[in-house]
Every structure is written in structure tokens, then in C-alpha cells.
């Protein structure tokens, strides 16, 4: 493969490209979906291709092909060069790149058991066992389950001289139970909505033990049908880690993307209220709030050794002691605002997309408020909300609204009645400034989200979000539903 890459870079140089990089990616994937007691989807497959990006007179061009003959690669490089030349007619200012050292490296994501070495029978068996337990619960109307596994072998090469081989093993799984009657429909998920996804092997599936949680998930779905509705009021809210992880994703991860902050994504994904004039000035959250973009977290789905433009993985503070201090950046956006170096956040969905700035693992650092039960014990009156159901935020990332699958009333430090149709909303900086308790490591969870959409054409990406449970004061709750 490296010889083909050298061939592509040589052609780019012959054509007169000022810079070129490429990714050759070989992917193996498997997805199993169950619905009720049957396997409703079974898909496994492979792909192989090359994506090449060239910079010509300050304009980017990108092309890809899955044909790895020398002639097909030559045609793809020429196509990339042609579109870059066309771009150069409309660039102002010309694109520049923040400096980055040259690397010659090999990296394999940490995993214990290759998930592709485990038999399909064993995988299906686990899902159907969990389904059987859920389906036996009276009142359950539909159950689903899934497992997904991906192996990416990625070779990055650049005209600067970097040669980087990375192997990614991603695994994920989850189950859902639905209960419905004529007036209502409720859902419970485990381990979180959309399942859990990690940079890990088969050991993740064994650790999550779907069968063990199946009964509880199904019973909670049925119980929700007769639960009280979340009241509409201003309340103290305690958020479960996976829900808080998505809150971090939407209200910190996306607004800290420098391409958005510079207006480059405004036509679709949106812009950001975190404009460069606010860097190191804005009180984004309370003093106990610390948020990082850490691509070096072992096992987290957004980790890597090098991003898709060959920048080494980093841990960047986005919010330090409540103050907005950093961006997710790329070599070209870093250059635009005078950063010394890219934060290393460029990734592409596959070899058929040019990389764009993506979240790595955007995480809320643990605080000193102890476990979830410690926070609840310390809360006189509030609502504990768990597992995301619905999420929405405005295009500058101020006004957000989330719904959760389930909630519980908190009274005098104790978890009381179950609540359904829980929702909360607010304005991002006000919300994060109302945070007065952040849990410790005890209940910290590194959530993996498999479906973050951004770019045109839209690319989906894996992003990680670490969070402990945390408490927020005076939050508008019960706003999404009637009642």
C-alpha cells in the first residue's frame, strides 16, 4: 500500500501541488440487529480505498477512489488537482497550514480480544438471550438489540514526509425495550441510548453484560406507562453521566469547533457563540467546570495516535476553572487565528470524505461531589434524569432542550417516585454557570456516540464523552411535553 501512496504523492508533486496528503483505508465491519426474537439485520462487509487531498495555490482539492491500480490512483490525483485549481480561483485568503513535525509511526488501538475472531453464533446468542428476557416481561411491545464491530487499517502519508499506520478496533452494543398502550409509548435503553461504543474489542460486550440488565430495562419501560409526568417548573436537576455526556457534546463540543466559530460551517451545521474574541475571557461555566478534548484517553471512541492530517493526538483544555480557554482545531484553522499548532482534531468518515474538524473525546473532568448517591443525598428537592431520548440545540449552540427516557423525583436526599417524559432546557452559559456539584470517579462514564453529523455532504463520526453525574440549579424542566 505504501508504494501506491508514494506513487500518488509523486504524481501530486509532478502536477505542482504545494502540499498533498492521503489516507488508504481498509475496513472490515459487522452489524447484527435483532428485533423481537429474530435477527432482523445482519450485515458484514469490507471496503478499501484511497482519499487524496492536495493544496494548490492556496485552494484545497480532494478526490477518492476504491480502485487501487496505479492508473486509477493517477486519475484520482489528477481529479483532486483539478478541483484544487478551481478552488484557488475563489480563495481569500489562501489556505495556510500550521506547522507539524513529520512522523514515522505505527499504532494499534488497545483491545484484548479481536471481535472478528468471535463466532457469529456467540454474538447472536447473547442478543437473543437478552431479547428473550425482555420479551417475557408483560407489557413489552417491542424489543431490539444490536452489536457492531469495525476494524480500520489506516495508512496516512503526506508530502511533508509523514508515514503513519494506525489500526482501530471499535465495538458497540445495546438493547432497547418499548412499551405502548393506546395513550402512550415509552422506551428504555441499556447501556445508553444508541448503545455504548468504545475503542475496544469483544471484552466490551462481555463487560456490558446485556443479559444481566435486560429484565430491569424491560420492567422500567412498562413501569413508565403508569409513571407520573415530569412537572413543568424550575428545578434542581441531577444528570446521569451518559445524558451529561451528550449535553457536553452539544453545548461544549460543537461550539468549540474552530471551523464553526470562524463561520465555515454556517450553511448547515451552524456557527458558534464561542467566537475568537471570547477566548480566555468568557466565563463559560461555574469555577468547578473543567472540560477537555482528550484524544489520548485509552479505550475512548474518539481516541487515536494521529488525526487525519497527521497531527499527533493531544489533550486540549477547552474550559479551565469555568473559563473558555481552547478550541478544536485543524492545521488550516489554527493558521487562520495564529495558533502555534493544530489541536489535532481532523477526521473523516471514510477515505471518500475530506477530513473536517471533529470532536475527539470531549469530557467533563471529575469533581469532588462523590458518587451519584452522594449527590442525590446532598439534594433536598430535585429531579434525577437518565438516558437521552431527544436532543436539540440552536445553530449558535445557545438554546438547548433535552428529553430523557426516565427520571426520578429527589426529596430530602432520597430517590422517590419514577417520572416519565422528563425534559429540561436552557441557555448554554447560564446552564453551565448553574452547576454546583460534579461527581468524582465513582460513577464516571466514558460514553461513545456513533452518529455525530457534520459537513456537506454530511459525514458521521464517532465521538467520546466522559462525564460523572453532576447537579444544576434552577433549570426549566418538563418543558417539552404537555402536562
Amino acid at each position, binding site marked *: 500500500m505504501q508504494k501506491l501512496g508514494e506513487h500518488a504523492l509523486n504524481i501530486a508533486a509532478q502536477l505542482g501541488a504545494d502540499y498533498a496528503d492521503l489516507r488508504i483505508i481498509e475496513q472490515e465491519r459487522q452489524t447484527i440487529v435483532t428485533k423481537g426474537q429474530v435477527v*432482523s439485520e*445482519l450485515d458484514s462487509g469490507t471496503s478499501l480505498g484511497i482519499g487524496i487531498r492536495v493544496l494548490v495555490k492556496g485552494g484545497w482539492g480532494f478526490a477518492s477512489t476504491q480502485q487501487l491500480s496505479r492508473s486509477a490512483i493517477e486519475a484520482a490525483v489528477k481529479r483532486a488537482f483539478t478541483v484544487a485549481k478551481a478552488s484557488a480561483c475563489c480563495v481569500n485568503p489562501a489556505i495556510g497550514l500550521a506547522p507539524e513535525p513529520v512522523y514515522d509511526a505505527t499504532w494499534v488501538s488497545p483491545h484484548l480480544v479481536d471481535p472478528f475472531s468471535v463466532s457469529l*453464533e456467540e454474538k447472536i446468542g447473547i442478543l437473543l438471550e437478552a431479547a428473550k428476557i425482555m420479551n417475557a416481561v408483560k407489557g413489552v411491545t417491542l424489543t431490539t438489540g444490536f452489536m457492531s464491530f469495525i476494524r480500520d487499517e489506516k495508512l496516512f502519508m503526506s508530502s511533508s514526509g509523514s508515514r503513519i499506520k494506525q489500526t482501530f478496533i471499535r465495538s458497540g452494543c445495546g438493547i432497547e425495550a418499548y412499551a405502548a398502550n393506546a395513550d402512550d409509548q415509552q422506551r428504555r435503553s441499556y447501556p445508553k441510548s444508541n448503545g455504548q461504543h468504545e475503542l475496544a474489542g469483544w471484552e466490551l460486550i462481555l463487560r456490558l453484560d446485556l443479559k444481566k440488565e435486560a429484565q430491569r430495562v424491560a420492567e422500567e419501560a412498562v413501569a413508565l406507562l403508569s409513571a407520573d409526568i415530569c412537572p413543568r417548573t424550575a428545578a434542581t436537576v441531577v444528570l446521569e453521566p451518559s445524558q451529561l455526556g451528550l449535553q457536553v457534546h452539544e453545548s461544549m463540543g460543537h461550539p468549540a469547533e474552530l471551523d464553526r466559530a470562524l463561520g465555515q460551517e454556517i*450553511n448547515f451545521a451552524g456557527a458558534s457563540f464561542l467566537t475568537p474574541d471570547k477566548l480566555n475571557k468568557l466565563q463559560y461555566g461555574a469555577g468547578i467546570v473543567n472540560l477537555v478534548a482528550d484524544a489520548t484517553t485509552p479505550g475512548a471512541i474518539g481516541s487515536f495516535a494521529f488525526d487525519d492530517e497527521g497531527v499527533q493526538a493531544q489533550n486540549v483544555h477547552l474550559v479551565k476553572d469555568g473559563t473558555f480557554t481552547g478550541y478544536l482545531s485543524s492545521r488550516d484553522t489554527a493558521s487562520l487565528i495564529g495558533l502555534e499548532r493544530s489541536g489535532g482534531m481532523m477526521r473523516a468518515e471514510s477515505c471518500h470524505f475530506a477530513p473536517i474538524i471533529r470532536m475527539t473525546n470531549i469530557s467533563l473532568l471529575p469533581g469532588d461531589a462523590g458518587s451519584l448517591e452522594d449527590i442525590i443525598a446532598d439534594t433536598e428537592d430535585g429531579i434525577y434524569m437518565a438516558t437521552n431520548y431527544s436532543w436539540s440545540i440552536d445553530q449558535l449552540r445557545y438554546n438547548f432542550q433535552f428529553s430523557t427516557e426516565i427520571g426520578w423525583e429527589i426529596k430530602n436526599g432520597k430517590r422517590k417516585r419514577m417520572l416519565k417524559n422528563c425534559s429540561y432546557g436552557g441557555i448554554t452559559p447560564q446552564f453551565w454557570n448553574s452547576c454546583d456539584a460534579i461527581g468524582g470517579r465513582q460513577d464516571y462514564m466514558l460514553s461513545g456516540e456513533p452518529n455525530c453529523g457534520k459537513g456537506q455532504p454530511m459525514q458521521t463520526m464517532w465521538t467520546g464523552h466522559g462525564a460523572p453525574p453532576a447537579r444544576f440549579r434552577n433549570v426549566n424542566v418538563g418543558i417539552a*411535553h404537555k402536562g
Partner: protein
Amino acid sequence: MLTEAKARQIIDTALTHAQGKCSGCEVTLESSDIATSRFANNSMTQNQAPERTSIAVRVLKNGRQARLTSDDLAPKSITRLLDEALAASQILAKDPGLLPLLSGHKKTAAQPNRLDRKTASLSAEARADAVAEIIKIASSRGLSAAGVVASGSEYTAIGNSKGLFVSHRQSHAQCSVTMRAGDATGWSKAHHIRFADLDCAGLAERAADKAAANVNPVEIKPGRYTVILEPSAVLDLLAYIFADFGATSQIDKLSCFQDKLGKKVLGSNINIVDDVHHPFQAGIPFDGEGLPRQSVSLVKNGVFTDMVYGRRAAAKLKRKSTGHGLAEPNSSGEMPMNLIVGGGDVSLEEMIASSKKAILLTRVWYVRNVDPLSKIVTGMTRDGTFLVEDGAVKSAVKNLRFNQSLIEMLNSVVALGPSLRTAGEEGFPAVVPPMKVENFNFASTTTF
């Protein structure tokens, strides 16, 4: 881009290898070479020209099926993929709902010609010229432009061991523009078969007009208002109800129209049809198994008249498939993909002129389901939200969050405009009208 001759050759390779090994084999090929030029801040930011073809093979054997995918089209790789699918299928339990493959059928309707060769082969320079024109308009008005200009084509072919072969090639032209005047933005978008139909300059002017009108927004109190929804806003809201017209959503008890077939569920002025052959439509005229898509009346004068059916759900409910099935096997069953929402004769201008007080919405954003049965969705207004008073647009307003039942909304439509081919960002392009709706529920406001 895959040619039909090459597609037939690849399919034949797989079917020949499958002979005698299984009771049925289906091959699906999908190919795309859509190129996208992106710009922002009056400058080109990205320019992509990918080419991609994928193959999926589905095998049926001993009452079981499996489907595997690849993008390696070499004969040796295709036969290996097929062998792996055969092995995988035998690990699964018997599928009691499994149907035999479709036989080759005669064409039941004239196939739409949706290929414009000029658009399919449009050069990067031509897209750059369109971008330059948009930037020129922005600069001349002191604005900043962002957006995309895209062109190319897509091809789909399905062949199976019972003699079926269907294929469809379609060109793709898309332009969307956001104009920015300080914090104020305006947006417009179009998606057509022919690049010549896009009118990129017209879209730029429209977005610029919106941005110019969107300055100095006033804050209004959340609450229930009459709204005037431009077609893109209508499309991106209704994108969240279309799946509820699938038969499988009824079987799974997930539809907001559960057990309401034949009953009046929406206002008498609401008519919804799925029709791939409509002159304003685009898309593939057959479903995931190669069955021709039929025109289906989903709502007539507010009555839930019919659903779309894939073959599996149709067999379960003792109906005939309408040709809307997704590729087998799948969990969701079917989907209407070519919606036509019936319009009226009240223009957008007349809706504004006849309003004492209303909110005019250019588009909505980040729409998500909140309550599946009452079909409450949430989302934000974006890129041009205006207060209408005494028959005229009075000012821009700060964007608002809505929590709105789509069922209630479609029971509160008081005026409909002409239906147009419309592009949004939440679902497929469709043919929808502008609407004037009473009692639309805004829950909160934002800062801009």
C-alpha cells in the same frame, strides 16, 4: 461511474457463482460521483470529488437469508463475498416471514428520465464559476456568503437469480446559500436533476434579501402564535411524520396513526400522496427489492387512507406491496420517499397580507421527536424569522424553540399555497406547499 454494461457483468458474476448453492441470490449495486464545492466567508473552503461503488449480495437458503456488502468489485472478491453470505445465512434461525425473490417483471409505467448528462459531467470550473457568482453577489451587498454547489450522478442497479434486472441513473444538482450580515443570516436551497434549473444567483439574491431583512431582531414572548411556514420549514417538520405511514410502524406499534386507518386524523384540507413519477419528484422508481414504486394516497381530505408496504409487511397484513420496501433484511420495513403534500391557491404574500399577527418562518433546524404518539417535535427557527403585523412583515424576531405536535399542526392549517419541489436539511426533498398554521407552540427563545 458504473455503466449499465459493467453493472450487468458484475451481477452476472455473482449470480453465476450462486447457481446451485442457494434458492435465491440478489445483487444490488450503488454508484455515485457527486462532487461538492464548499465555500464560506466569501472563499472556497473545500472541494471534494469522490467516486464510489458498493455491492450488496443477498442469498436465500433453507428458509434463511443474509446480506453482505463490499466495495471490492473484483470477480474473485465478489465470489468470496457470496460464499461468506451463504455461510452467514446458515448460522441464523429460519425466518418465517422470508419471501422468495421477485421475478423479473414487465415495466408497469414509463420510467422517468432523470439523467441530465451536462449535470452529470459538470466540471469543477463550472461549479467554481457558480460559487464565484454567489460570492460576487455577497460582496456587492456587503455580505458574507457560505454554502455548497454540488453536481454529479448516482446509479442503482438490482438483479436477481429469478431474472429481475432494474436500474436507474440520475443526475444531481444542488445549491444552498447562507448570507450573513453581521449576526443576521438568510438561507435558500434548491435540489434538481438539471444544474440549469438551480439558478444559483437567484438563490444567492434570495438569501441576501433574507439576511438584510433579518437584522436587529426583536425578542417576542414564547407562546402560541399563528405561523406562516415557507416550504422548507414545512418539509423539515413533516420529515418527522412520514415514517409513520409505513406499515411496519403499525405492526411495531410505533406509528402516531396507530390503528387509525380509515379514520380522519388530520384537517380536511390535508392531502398527502407518495408518487415517484410526479413531475416535480426525483428518485429511484423501484424499491429495495426492485419492485416498481406505486402512487399511494396516504391522506385524503384528512382521512388516513393508506400506508406504504414492503413485501414482508404486506404479506403479514394480507395486502399487496406498494413498492416501498427497504432492502431486505431490515428492521424498519418501508418508507415513503416521494411525498407530495397537496397545496392550495393562497400565495405566501397573501398569507402575510391576510394576517393580523403571525410569525413567518424561513426554515427550522435540529428537529427531533419528543413524543412519538402525539408526535410532538422540538426544534429551532433559523435564518429568517419575522414578525408579521397588520398584513406586513414588521421586523425580524429572535429565533424561537418550538414544541409542536405535528398532528395538531396538520389540524390547524388555515391556508395552503402552491406545492413546490422543496429542499431542506432534515429529510428527502419533497413537493410541499407553504402553510399558514394557527396555535403553533413556541416554548422558549434564544439570544439571536
